[in-house]
């Protein structure tokens, strides 16, 4: 594959073959607790897409131009979290100030996102896989979309399950994990479509 196509390959791979939730189990906490309703899931999913697509390239810049020159790579965990938290806080304040409807639909989910492991995970994967700036952006965007697809699919299925009879011990998180397992199996069908590590 030519280098110019790599960002797009990474983009599709991060949605389908390497879905951050279904193959790496990242972002499970909010996935399990929020996926009860389609509306909240959509809001949270959108917020995740936005934050991933913006913080991943941002962290790339910080890592390449601040941490590497000063030899502080080992501080990346702390620095990435600070960047993510600061960015999320800023976005929330901006939204609150300038766009009321957008704040209502997106802003209220932003604080939840700072502690979402998937966001930090994407930044850490980006460092390990040595992506370029453009590829990092597409990787962040794709992972966000992948997470979004997984959570709305889960919310849709759980809404249909409301009237189903489930063994009492399996109710709640148990059945959600079983469904997630089936979804992961379905997504395994995509593997081999795009070969990327």
């Amino acid at each position, binding site marked *: 594959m030519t280098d110019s196509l790599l960002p797009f390959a990474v983009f599709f791979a991060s949605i389908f073959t390497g879905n951050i939730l279904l193959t790496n189990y990242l972002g499970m906490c909010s996935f399990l607790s929020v996926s009860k309703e389609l509306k909240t899931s959509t809001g949270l999913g959108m917020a995740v897409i936005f934050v991933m697509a913006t913080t991943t390239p941002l962290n790339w810049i910080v890592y390449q131009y601040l941490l590497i020159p000063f030899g502080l790579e080992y501080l990346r965990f702390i620095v990435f979290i600070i960047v993510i938290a600061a960015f999320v806080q800023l976005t929330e304040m901006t939204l609150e100030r300038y766009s009321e409807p957008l704040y209502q639909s997106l802003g209220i989910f932003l604080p939840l996102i700072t502690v979402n492991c998937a966001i930090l995970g994407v930044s850490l994967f980006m460092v390990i896989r040595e992506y370029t700036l453009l590829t990092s952006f597409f990787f962040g965007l794709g992972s966000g979309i992948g997470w979004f697809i997984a959570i709305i699919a889960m919310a849709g299925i759980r809404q249909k399950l409301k009237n189903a009879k489930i063994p009492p*011990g399996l109710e709640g998180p148990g059945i959600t994990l079983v469904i997630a397992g089936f979804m992961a199996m379905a997504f395994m069908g995509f593997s081999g479509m795009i070969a990327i590590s």
Partner: protein
Amino acid sequence: MANKLLRKTFMEPLGKNNPVFVQILGICSTLAVTNKLQNTMVMTLGVLFTTALSSLTISLLRNYIPSRIRMMVETMVIATFVIIVDIVLKAFYPEMWKQLGPYVGLIITNCIIMGRIEAFALQNKPMLSLVDGLASGLGYAYVLLAIAFVRELLGTGSLWGYQILGSWWTNWSIMIMPPGGFFVLAIIIWIIREKIMKEAKND
């Protein structure tokens, strides 16, 4: 009296208040490495170290942290311990470090650690918080080790890298792939919850 309290603090997270199957917390970072017993052991030890020591540290500092910025302070303390784990692994077990990849760093966002600090360490004395953190880490560790045990045994027929099952065994390769982790965790949660419900009924 003091001993009784310590005992209770220690036993609860291991049994009826287990962070994984009762509160469903913190499975994100570690579930991904449960396809091998060895990796899981290293990861859970990392989590154990971080929960215990960050609970202790926060508890020591609890009267000096302004409540408005406590989240930030907590994250910094947790991140410091995770960085120690990361550096130690990188220095002494570079192979293991490579295999675990980003997951060591993700211990920071493990909800159990932050959860125990918020719920326990901010209100309790240092010794008690250390015990609580230790017990939560242990409660977490044995569930994940159980998952890894099942996944590695069924998925590859081996344990800790040694072949256990003979050539008659057909590997359930689904077990070492992502869906296996979801299914095994779901089944473990199911069994434990049924048991807890039965006990609650009998009481």
